[in-house]
């Protein structure tokens, strides 16, 4: 616990967010550049497109929140970045991953052999339910060791053990050597998620250039040899709120210390406000709004984002206003804007064509024809 605290940069208030954080990322190298990524999946009712022309960027040490409801395509987006799409899926577009010390790779074009080298080393993923992702009949230390040994078959047992304990320590697991010898059912939900996080970073930790120097003696903030991408798909949805807060703080600290790029997938805007620098809102396979988290949550420009905020329960009673209707089936998308049938401010021309992402200033974009319209504010009241 103490270790996390020492390296954790305190949470910045939203008021000072812009200046303070932008400075920190001035020299940030680009880790992931997704351009027009499209995923097609075969289903019984024909092909569907859960990910449609998605473009986004994540820098080393940066955290991007991907927000969407079920059926928005956010999980398929994540799986495509892990090479874990269901069989038969077609991927087009580009997703360029640029780890600092090795050549960029286009994740959209990798074969399975390449994926096995990358997965777990340059890209890691943690899932919603840690119990179903862990092997129930294997000690957790052995499962983490597997993640290391898969990438470094030549290193000896001591080095692997060192990596296992280091990863558990980084994930702030108390008594790491004791926990490494336990089985998943002996751990609480929060600890299991910490073990999953340890597993996701274990290979990367073991790959550092000076593995003999324990991390605590390195200069704080020095990234490891390679920045890595960590994808977290609803990692706290199954956890209690008190535990959720600890896990969010852990992820936040890790990405700063290790220079991880974090793609944080969630349906909870409150969680996004806590962990993300920037946020992308997904609806029916497309990104409908993207920008800095303070801008998007304070002055949302897409009616869907506005609706999501109004539908999120707060501690105040009576403010709740749901979005009418349901998320459309991917097989029955409307011809124009996919939010048009549920939109409170729709215009006849919304049905004609899918709107482009329009510039709303300060790297803030929204896929709504009203953005830039002189009557935008009046219409969206």
């Amino acid at each position, binding site marked *: 616990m103490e270790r996390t605290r020492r390296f954790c940069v305190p949470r910045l208030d939203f008021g000072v967010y812009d200046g303070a954080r932008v400075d920190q990322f001035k020299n940030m190298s680009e880790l992931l550049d997704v351009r027009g990524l499209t995923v097609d999946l075969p289903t019984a009712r024909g092909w569907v497109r859960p990910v449609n022309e998605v473009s986004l960027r994540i820098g080393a040490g940066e955290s991007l929140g991907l927000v969407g409801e079920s059926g928005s395509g956010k999980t398929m987006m994540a799986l495509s970045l892990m090479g874990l799409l269901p069989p038969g899926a077609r991927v087009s577009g580009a997703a360029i991953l640029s780890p600092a010390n090795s050549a960029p790779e286009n994740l959209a074009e990798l074969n399975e052999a390449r994926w096995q080298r990358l997965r777990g080393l340059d890209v890691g993923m943690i899932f919603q339910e840690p119990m179903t992702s862990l092997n129930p009949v294997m000690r957790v230390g052995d499962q983490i060791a597997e993640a290391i040994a898969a990438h470094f078959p030549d290193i000896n047992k001591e080095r692997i053990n060192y990596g296992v304990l280091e990863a558990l320590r980084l994930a702030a697991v108390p008594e790491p050597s004791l926990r490494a010898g336990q089985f998943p059912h002996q751990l609480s939900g929060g600890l299991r998620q910490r073990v999953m996080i340890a597993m996701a970073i274990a290979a990367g930790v073991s790959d550092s250039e000076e593995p003999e120097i324990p991390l605590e003696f390195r200069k704080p903030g020095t990234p490891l040899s390679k920045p890595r991408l960590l994808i977290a798909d609803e990692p706290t949805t199954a956890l*209690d709120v008190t535990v*959720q807060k600890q896990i969010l703080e852990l992820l936040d600290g890790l990405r700063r210390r290790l220079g991880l790029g974090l793609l944080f997938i969630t349906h909870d805007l409150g969680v996004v406000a806590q962990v993300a620098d920037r946020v992308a809102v997904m609806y029916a396979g497309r990104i409908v709004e993207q920008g800095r988290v303070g801008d998007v*949550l304070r002055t949302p420009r897409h009616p869907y984002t506005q609706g999501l905020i109004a539908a999120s329960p707060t501690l105040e009673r009576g403010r*709740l206003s749901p979005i009418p209707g349901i998320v459309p089936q991917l097989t029955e998308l409307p011809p124009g804007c996919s939010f048009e049938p549920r939109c409170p401010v729709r215009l006849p021309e919304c049905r004609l064509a899918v709107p482009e992402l329009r510039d709303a200033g300060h790297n803030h974009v929204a896929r709504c024809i009203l953005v830039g319209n002189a009557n935008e504010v009046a219409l969206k009241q």
Partner: protein
Amino acid sequence: MESFISSFLRVRELSKKYNRSGGPFKRAPEQEQFIAVDHVSLEVTQGETFAVVGESGCGKTTLARMLLRLIEPDSGQIVFAGRDLLALPAAELRAQRREMQMIFQDPFASLDPRMRVGEIVGEPLAIHEPKLSKTDRTSRTLAILERVGLRADALRRYPHEFSGGQRQRIGIARALILRPKLIVADEPVSALDVSVGAQVLLLLRELQSEFSLTYVFISHSLPVVAQLATRIAVMRGGKFVEVGEAEQVLHQPAHQYTRELLSVVPALPVA
């Protein structure tokens, strides 16, 4: 004693222990027992929403199910509408159950996948009012389905054809068709998306005044509870650590644990 009889739902010293070890033929030693609900007392007045909030493992679901005797309490007393539920013989308990219904968390697991929605929603009527004609049963099923926002063609369809929010509406229709007085709702929106969860919360609020319902509302989420509750009980380790008016618990919490729960609620930045 007089007030005890007249209150709508009154629970006294309700307890439930589970064995950590042992088995059906072996009694576990005292220290091996897990106390899920520890001498909980509560009183619910008619027409209010009494919310129980707590983290996983605090005993809130065990408590909810004991209120309907879906789980048998080890000890304690439940008085509903003037009748001691734990003393009722099976036949009378069944009759009493039509007054008290439950809405479950998981709209995927709580509906029989092989039954049509019309059968699922109409089943309580078939059980409690066997003399009702089939056309009457269908028309009442149809009326309640439409009231919760489903179309008439839902009658002949199967649960898998519906989204999570629609399935939760089916669960609500099934709970309401007998016109109960008390609804125990166990995490009714936590499996739903934000926009759909808000729809269901508002529907529950509307139905409460329309059908004069009393809710016992179980949730892990204080923001969700804040939308409906008139009073809130905060539960931890099988006990209530704080009970009070919703406004008071949410904005002037007395117990340290309540303050901690409130402090970790992820908040949106204010526009």
